[in-house]
């Protein structure tokens, strides 16, 4: 029964966004000139709806389509279902939010601003396209579909990043694209190598084949780094704080909430996690991942608190949170026996971070355009997801308890301690975000309040609700891990207390003597260093290219010279022939005379 449902709804869930995308230019073409066009209408917002229904209605099932690519194989299971559910929900709510967020642009477009209309059309087209890529990669079990979904999502999202076409959006877009292409290259290398060794076209086959293949850990490394670009692994992370903040707020929310998880999904589907048969090399890969994950979790927090824009702070928080997830995934390689329990915690944590980070990003827009709510209520609502992200309540507490319990039982308290330190950093980041927002909101409040019953506040409130109640509705028995006993609470909450204390101290110091640090640490850290290096390299490379071209020129010239020589030789022959023709008689006479003389004087 469920299979029949899947066969019907899975293709519909993937096609529906594409149909809505095609509808946008169609409606625009059919509308009379001068009539106002509303590309972001009700049906447009419904793009992720079938996927959401599918994720909530069907638990398991597979769909095999032989004619598709290299053989299509789509599936839903205990991991994919919850990921699909939270992803589709976030896209749905962010899409609703976008209607309100881009209403100003819409008004300008109706008033006849061509540039605004073009931007709006592009957003309306690329949003569903990005979504369909994201959905496809979640349900794909065959490598080709997975790679296709990943690529479609990555490249279509470029249009969302550069939406405003301002200077920083272009820089963010460039950083995004450069790193995305690099990531695609690494992923392609890993997939080709792995699939070639295993002779398979499915992700499951790839995971199994990697265990026995020579150099399996190197494939793992390539895939980890390739997907790590998307997930913000330290060293490859610097595009995130450049690209995520410059996108329109709903796009930032899905970038930081849903699309960043594509990196995690890539790891979950391609790395041999929880395989006891994995060799020592994989354990070393796991250790590397663990260390880089913890470095990212703590380093990004330290760098992030120095940022001035709330979205940049949130982007660094995403890097930090993904660092924690990286560390948890690494435990699947370091301690494979823990993985069955840990994988549920990872999925829960990912869903929690996705929705909560979505709520926080959407909240930034709410702070800029505050609705008609009393100030205390608005701020309570803005603080709630921040507290949840630090692990103090609701889904955050459940997520944190889920992995803490498993790691404590498995005998890895050190990892828990480090993760708790990262949570201290998260608290500081959240305090910083709220502080930045507080200053912006006071300014915005003077400019007037928005209606409460409009798409933006409603979508934000719904996201908030969904994020906080996550452990109650996210499907499957796997996530019924229960709540921590009271005795465990101090162990879970001390990072919050420490983070708050630290934030207050720093705030008190900064009030006396303003800190200069934030001015010196631009978002995007490594990017600026790399850019400088690239400029130098480029100057060098251009010289070399010029030399190469001149070498080729010399080579061609040499051959042309030889050809000319040959023609000259031919001409010489022609001349010689002419000379012969001219003097033939004389020569013959000479020969005859010579012969005669020879005969005369020859000895008898």
């Amino acid at each position, binding site marked *: 029964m469920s299979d029949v449902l899947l066969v019907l709804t899975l293709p519909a869930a993937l096609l529906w966004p594409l149909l809505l995308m095609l509808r946008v*230019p169609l409606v625009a073409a059919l509308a009379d000139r001068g009539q106002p066009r509303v590309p972001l209408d009700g049906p447009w917002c419904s793009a992720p709806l079938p996927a959401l229904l599918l994720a909530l209605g069907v638990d398991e099932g597979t769909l095999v389509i*032989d*004619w*598709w*690519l*290299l*053989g299509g194989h789509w599936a839903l299971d205990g991991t994919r279902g919850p990921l699909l559910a939270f992803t589709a929900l976030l896209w749905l709510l962010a899409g609703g939010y976008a209607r309100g967020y881009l209403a100003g642009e819409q008004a300008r477009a109706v008033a006849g601003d*061509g*540039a605004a209309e*073009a931007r709006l059309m*592009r957003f309306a087209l690329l949003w569903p396209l990005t979504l369909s890529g994201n959905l496809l990669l979640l349900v794909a079990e065959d490598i*080709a*579909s997975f*790679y*296709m979904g990943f*690529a479609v999502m990555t*490249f279509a999202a470029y*249009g969302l990043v*550069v939406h405003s*076409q301002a200077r920083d959006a272009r820089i963010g*877009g460039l950083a995004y*694209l450069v790193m995305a*292409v*690099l990531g*695609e*290259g*690494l992923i*392609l*290398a890993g997939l*080709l*190598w792995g*699939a*070639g*060794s295993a*002779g398979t076209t499915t992700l499951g086959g790839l995971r199994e084949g990697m265990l026995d293949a020579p*150099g399996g850990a190197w494939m793992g490394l390539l895939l980890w780094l390739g997907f790590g670009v998307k997930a913000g692994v330290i060293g490859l992370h610097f595009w995130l704080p450049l690209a995520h903040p410059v996108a329109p707020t709903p796009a930032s929310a899905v970038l930081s909430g849903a699309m960043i998880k594509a990196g995690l999904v890539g790891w979950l589907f391609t790395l041999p996690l929880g395989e006891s048969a994995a060799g020592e090399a994989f354990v070393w890969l796991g250790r590397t991942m663990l260390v880089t994950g913890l470095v990212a979790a703590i380093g990004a927090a330290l760098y992030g608190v120095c940022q001035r824009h709330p979205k940049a702070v949130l982007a660094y928080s995403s890097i930090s949170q993904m660092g924690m997830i990286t560390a948890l995934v690494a435990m699947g390689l370091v301690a494979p026996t823990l993985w069955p329990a840990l994988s549920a915690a990872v999925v829960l944590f990912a869903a929690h971070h996705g929705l909560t980070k979505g709520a926080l990003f959407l909240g930034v827009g709410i702070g800029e355009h505050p609705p008609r709510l009393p100030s205390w209520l608005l701020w309570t609502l803005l603080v709630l997801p921040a507290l949840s992200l630090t692990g103090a309540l609701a889904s955050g507490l459940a997520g944190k308890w889920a992995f803490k319990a498993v790691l404590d039982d498995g005998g890895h308290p050190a990892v828990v301690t480090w993760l708790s330190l990262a949570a201290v950093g998260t608290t500081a980041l959240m305090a910083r975000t709220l502080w930045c927002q507080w200053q912006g909101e006071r300014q915005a409040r003077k400019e007037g309040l928005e209606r409460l019953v409009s798409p933006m506040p409603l979508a934000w409130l719904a996201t908030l609700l969904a994020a906080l109640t996550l452990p109650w509705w996210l499907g499957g028995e796997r996530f019924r891990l229960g709540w921590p006993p009271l005795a465990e609470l101090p162990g879970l909450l001390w990072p919050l207390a420490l983070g708050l204390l630290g934030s207050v101290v720093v705030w008190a110091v900064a009030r006396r003597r303003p800190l200069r640090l934030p001015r010196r640490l631009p978002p995007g850290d490594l990017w600026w260093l790399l850019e400088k290096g690239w400029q130098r390299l480029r100057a060098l490379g251009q010289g070399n*290219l010029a030399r190469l*071209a001149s070498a080729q020129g010399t*080579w*061609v010239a040499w051959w042309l010279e030889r*050809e000319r020589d040959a023609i000259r030789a031919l001409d010489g022959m022609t001349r010689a022939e002419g000379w012969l023709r001219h003097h033939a008689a004389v020569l013959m006479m000479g020969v005859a005379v010579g012969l005669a003389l020879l005969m005369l004087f020859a000895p008898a």
Partner: protein
Amino acid sequence: MSGGLLLLATLCTSLFAAVMIFLLPERAFRARTGLNLGAALIKLSLVAWMVWGLSRGGEYSLEFPVLEGLAFALRADPLGIMFAGLSSLLWLFTTVYAIGYLEDSPNRKRFFGFFSLCVASTLGISLAGNLFTFLIFYELLTLSTYPLVVHRGTSQALAAGRVYLRFTLTAGLVLMIGMVALHALAGDIRFGEREILAGLSPDHRPLLVGLFWGLIAGFGVKAALVPLHGWLPRAMVAPAPVSALLHAVAVVKAGAFGIVRLVYDVYGIELSAELGLLTGLVVVAAVTILYGSLRALAQRELKPLLAYSTVSQVAYIVLGIGLGGPLGTIAAFSHLLHQGLMKATLFFCAGNYAEELGIHRIDGLDGAGRRMPLTSLAFTVGALGMIGLPPVVGFFSKWYLGTGAIQAGMPWVIAVLVASSLLSAVYFLPILGRLWFRPGPDHGVGEWPEERRLGRLETHPWLLVPVVATALFSLMAGMLAGVPFSPLEWATRVVNTEYLP
């Protein structure tokens, strides 16, 4: 219809069309168009008939002796019919495109006459049954393409034509000598009689190796292998349909197809591997791929960029051949078709930008996506395919090359593939960015160099339809790769039935 007659009819359709076009007066536009399209359609259906027949086990061959021990042989085998199918399909689109492109320009009679002669020779190349027949049509192709390359008659075009002749005629000479030597060594070798050379005594091995590289050098000129590629970027002065013909349909492909025939049907893959020839081919191909991509980076104009991209992409075919195993062979055969579809799309698009808006340089493309959305979409499909992103067909070539490289025990080839993907992303993505994300004249910034409103749609319908059709084919051939008679499926079938030991 009997097998031989069908072959002859297919070949003669274009020959007949060529003769008739030369006989018609210059002004007879309608008759010429009708003749062109009719011949292209008839040929396509004849080839489709043979594809159907072959898949059901039919045989098509025809031969008659020319000299003692030397025969003119035509034979339709799955590999040849694959190439014939590609060229007939693309020929239809190129003809449609050329009719639109050359509207109101002088010397159309000469152009279309030689155009038809070209397709006849390409078909001859694909259906040739031995090296001798192959070579006859190969040379005919060279001679009939020259008037097309110099069609515009400008000094630049004439210079490019001279370079073209210089390269191809000397290569033809080398091929001829190589063929005669092979003939002297082993007699008339029909394609597929791989046992003849394999059965020669080991004393002949060094000679065989030498002949192989000589013949590769001969074919390598048309296949644009570095360092013999110099003529290709120069020849971009030719009109856009001719570029499509050079790069996608006939000339470059004929060279690559020659290498395929040489390795698979004359030497045989086992002998080639034994003699260590395949590794050499892989190295040559790898160098060509990287060199072509690097040179493409430095181009400022659209057509030379596409030309260097061809240099790099055609080497994929040679790479696949060099990898040897079944997967590499599938990659080589299917890329023969895939590259044709994608590159034809790209050149048609370049022609559309030049015709409609007068754009030749890459930096002139800003905002062209708004003015010409369908053309730009087609260009996007082609470019993404060249980078190797699914669902466009280019991905499948990369997939089979990569997995084939592992199968052949040469994992370093994956690094070459990834580097080539990255490089093509670096030179194609900025173009896509310009098309779609930069403001241009239609957003009120600047002006098109030379705008002509050729049709009610974004351009003349004869120019638009082929572009959209080839782009759709590139997309569908990828998405429906598992359907019978898709390029990939046919290539797999050819490999499974003919070349697996």
